[in-house]
């Protein structure tokens, strides 16, 4: 049933690319209604793959969920087409922004309303709402998206997703390549969208410190497995997380060997 239970439940999924490359080896996670959940991990850990398994963009990259299930409001998403997932209220903001460069900012935003098959007035309202959260986009509405700054492009990508009236946004590294100041600005807007519009967020980030300040819960992904999870507060205070993801090693640096040992220990934990 929709009312209780988590909004999103990823149940022990396994993902294989090109029929042979096993990338996710049993990932489970949950996003509560109204929650902000961080999915953390280094390069190649499988964060983007997890998000694409949820949004079903995986199929376009010859990836496949071979085991497990993805449920949204109690309904299985893993057999749907990407546009059907969007219509259910789950939308992914892809890593690297992916704006339509030869379209104006406003046209970019309007493409986000296409899946909803909405009327003109309701699209107009949504557009105003996006401009309300991203006033700088309103000033640049007639510019080609290819010519605006990286931060504005990230805003376009998020605003475009917002136009579909999502219940859950899958944000893939929104901080990538942006100045710290801008990153803060964008994350503050995400917080507001969460609080004011009730959009739940699953946030994939390499920037652990940043993500754990905005999320309420976190999962740490390594090599296609969840190695650790817990409330954001607890993760921030966890000694291992501090050492390996927050770069706050205490008085000594860990040697490579000890790192190995640590990894093994974590695997047992998981």
């Amino acid at each position: 049933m929709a009312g209780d239970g988590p909004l999103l439940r990823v149940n022990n999924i396994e993902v294989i690319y090109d029929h042979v490359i096993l990338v996710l080896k049993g990932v489970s996670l949950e996003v509560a209604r109204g929650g902000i959940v961080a999915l953390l991990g280094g390069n190649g850990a499988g964060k983007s793959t997890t998000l694409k398994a949820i949004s079903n963009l995986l199929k376009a990259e010859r990836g496949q969920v071979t085991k497990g299930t993805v449920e949204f409001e109690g309904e299985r998403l893993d057999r749907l087409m990407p546009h059907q997932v969007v219509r259910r209220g789950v939308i992914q903001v892809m890593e690297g922004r992916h704006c339509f460069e030869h379209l104006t900012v406003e046209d970019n935003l309007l493409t986000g309303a296409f899946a909803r098959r909405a009327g003109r007035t309701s699209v107009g309202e949504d557009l105003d709402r996006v401009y309300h959260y991203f006033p700088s986009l309103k000033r640049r509405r007639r510019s080609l998206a290819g010519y605006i700054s990286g931060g504005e492009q990230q805003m376009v990508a998020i605003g475009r997703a917002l136009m579909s009236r999502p219940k859950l946004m899958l944000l893939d590294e929104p901080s990538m390549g942006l100045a710290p100041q801008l990153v803060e600005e964008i994350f503050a807007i995400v917080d507001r969208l969460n609080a004011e519009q009730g959009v739940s967020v699953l946030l994939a980030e390499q920037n652990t410190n940043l993500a754990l300040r905005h999320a309420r819960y976190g999962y740490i992904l390594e090599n296609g497995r969840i190695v650790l999870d817990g409330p954001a507060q607890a993760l921030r205070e966890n000694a291992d997380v501090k050492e390996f993801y927050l770069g706050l090693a205490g008085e000594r640096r860990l040697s490579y060997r000890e790192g190995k040992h640590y990894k093994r220990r974590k695997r047992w934990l998981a």
Partner: protein
Amino acid sequence: MHFLYTVLIDPFVQIAGDPRFFVEVLTGGLLTGVMYSLVALGFVIIYKASRVFNFAQGTMVLFAALMLVGQMEMGAPAWLALGTTCGVMVGLAFAVERLVLRPMVNQSEIILFMATLGISFFLEGLGQLMWGGDVHTLELGIPSGPLTLGGILVNKLDLVGAAVAGLLVTALALFFRWTSVGRVLRAVADDHQAALSVGVPLKVVWVIVWTMAGLVALVAGIMWGSSLGVQFSLSLVALKALPVLILGGFTSVPGAIVGGLIVGATEKVGEVFWGPALGGAVENWFAYLLALIFLLFRPQGLFGERIIERV
């Protein structure tokens, strides 16, 4: 020495001697070029949105013209035949999506290209099966015959063709610019993955672009068929669209138009003024030579995709 003279000097002497004749030849060439443009346009519409190189575009021109003329020969009035043919082209778009593109989703471009080769043979066979292999005359009451415009002789049919092509291109440009479907098609052309991610249903996009290409093919078929008769060589003439695309760029609507005009004009001028020196039949190969030169010096074509680089 004499050869050099006939190639490098003599044609220009002729042109200077009778400029009005040159303009006539040029106009004729441009108007033929419009036909090439129409076929190329069909390619561009599909290629832009799906990166599928539709080898069957030429056959679709033939097929549409055959459907039309076949029904009219059976006594159907023109409006009815036109209506059914439009319906058939839409049906074809649905069939191609369902039977060919959907099962082949995520295959490489070359495999999709091969699939369109299959579609091409299928349509050619089907057309022949239904309407036979003879030459059919298409008589839609489009005015034809010579006309003198400011002292220059042109064919009325060619003028109508140019007008129709102009209208079609304007309509397409407005559609792409101002409708929400047009906007989505531009988005898909720009970033296929991003379009998927915002919930653009790809199968809808495919049906739309194949329908558009089918209708453009019908228009091209009517114009070509009215001047040459509906026959199987029509799909061969359509092969000229390839050099047109190389000139204009595979993803550019204006490119398809300008490319078609250039090919049409240069090959005709080449044929008339350089043909005697080069042993004739310049029209048959000139477009390909031009394309080859473009491939060497400007492979993206005249209007190839503008690549945005921010600094």
